[in-house]
């Protein structure tokens, strides 16, 4: 842990990031997007219901939508922040010098990753005041709140690690970006589609027999899809119905944690291993 507090790469990256006007513009747009959404929603519900107050049940829906919006933004921003971590240094020809310093490969990789994570956390923290609106109206327990943020963090950590891994393995930033966005889309969209198809097929196979069979594949897919996970947090019924549909009792949030933490660890291990050339004899 000591290295994380005293990591030259991390400090340099943060310094550069906060010097660049791009970062502030990024934060600004992120907040504007969230605000437009929240106020738009409140305005819309009030017009539809014709009342001038906002009910807790609606504020829970707002909370849910906010969580989804934030998940979406984080999923889209994280690859952009991390997929160039190493490859952009390679392209700027600063990597070779960095690699001849006596920092360990782990220090360099963790510095790169944590500087991106720090920026994402800043985005999330900057968005908190918007959430406070939801609290103002009540209806959300702090536990829901903590759960959503914890899993948001786990998700961005994993996607960020995948980005750093691709940028270590792939020479060109563009290609690394494509690979990272591809992975992100696969995890968040493709798995969702396949999940639906698998469920349809099992349901179709068993129409009439009345005894639904277990679908491990469906359950695994549900466990790695961030959207399904968030949905299960936001409505208890959703979580139960997934277990009902797949006939697997294992809670999907545990599956999610296992999958994304392993993804993080494996990606980081590969990055650390592949950052520098292996000087040992080939055989």
């Amino acid at each position, binding site marked *: 842990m000591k290295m994380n507090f005293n990591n030259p790469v991390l400090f340099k990256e943060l310094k550069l990031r906060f*010097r660049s006007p791009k970062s502030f513009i990024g934060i600004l747009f992120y907040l504007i997007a969230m605000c437009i959404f929240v106020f738009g929603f409140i305005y819309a519900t009030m017009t539809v219901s014709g009342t001038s107050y906002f009910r807790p049940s609606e504020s829970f829906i707002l909370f849910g939508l906010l969580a989804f919006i934030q998940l979406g933004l984080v999923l889209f921003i994280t690859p952009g922040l991390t997929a160039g971590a190493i490859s952009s240094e390679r392209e700027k020809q600063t990597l070779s*010098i960095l690699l*001849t310093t006596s920092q360990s490969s782990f220090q360099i990789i963790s510095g790169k990753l944590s500087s991106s994570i720090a920026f994402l956390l800043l985005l999330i923290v900057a968005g908190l005041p918007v959430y406070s609106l939801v609290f103002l109206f009540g209806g959300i327990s702090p536990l829901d709140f903590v759960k959503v943020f914890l899993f948001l963090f786990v998700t961005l950590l994993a996607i960020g690690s995948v980005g750093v891994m691709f940028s270590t393995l792939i020479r060109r930033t563009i290609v690394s970006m494509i690979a990272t966005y591809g992975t992100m889309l696969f995890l968040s969209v493709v798995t969702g589609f396949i999940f639906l198809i698998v469920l349809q097929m099992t349901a179709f196979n068993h129409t009439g027999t009345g005894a639904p069979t277990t679908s491990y594949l469906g359950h695994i897919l549900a466990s790695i899809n961030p959207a399904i996970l968030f949905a299960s947090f936001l409505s208890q019924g959703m979580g139960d119905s997934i277990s009902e549909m797949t006939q697997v009792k294992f809670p999907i949030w545990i599956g999610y944690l296992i999958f994304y933490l392993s993804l993080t660890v494996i990606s980081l291990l590969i990055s650390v291993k592949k950052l*520098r050339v292996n000087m*040992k004899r*080939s055989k």
Partner: protein
Amino acid sequence: MIEIKGLTKKYGQFKALDNLNLTLSEGTVFGFVGANGAGKSTTFLILATLLQPTAGDVFIDGVNIRKNPQAVRKMIGYMPDFFGVYDQLKADEYLDFYGASYGIPEAERQKLIPQLLELVNLSHKRHAYVDLLSRGMKQRLCLARSLIHDPKVLILDEPASGLDPRARVEMRDILRTLKKMGKTILISSHILPELAEMCDEIGVIDNGRLIAHGSVAEIQDKLRGERVITVRLAGQLDNTIAFFEEDPYVTNIEQLDANDGISFSYKGTEEDQVILLKRAIMNNIPILSFMEHVTNLEDVFMEITKGAD
């Protein structure tokens, strides 16, 4: 200090380095000369732990770079032929970042940075953004950077390329200072005379093979094989020709255009040359001057690299 044993590097089927052997003692300034694509940068990349050798070993201060690259990184300062800098970073912050990367404590870095900037004559650019510095300034800053952890060995890949004549002279002065500090320095260049001025030893590499290695004088000697000597005389031209013709190492005697002397090729060693001059004087030959022609180093370079093909 540096021991390179049978170093070989293949890119696919292409042999960029072929069984390179080289030993350098501590405090040597070694000049590495070779044409484009000869393998200089490849050698330096391996020494800097950035490239895996196909075969062979390198020891720096007794440490095998294959076994313990991390320890080697602490001992070497490497300056690549092409390098970039971070934008949005000032010169002192640039040095500070690399200082921190070598684990130098903050307080020490604050003392070191002004000294290093002073050494490379960049004190006035301390607060300038590095990406806005001129090429020569970036080069000097990079040299300062490679010194920040006080390495024993400096590996400089064409440090003088892109520098104006004045900056070259300054670079040479800096390297002299570093030599006085006892550092072992490896410099590569295409320009032999430039290296000859500041190096103790020269290695000539061609097609991945070290074809000559020694002191500057030795290299000149060895490569030339023969020297051209001009003797100016106060009379007695015929006697003199007869005298020099007897020497077994003398060939190609010619009269000078002004008819006041002769020139000839000489193949003997330097000791032989001394004895020859002594004998000529004892034989009462009225020598005004006895001068060894310094063949242009460029010619020597062309000569060797041509011959090795």
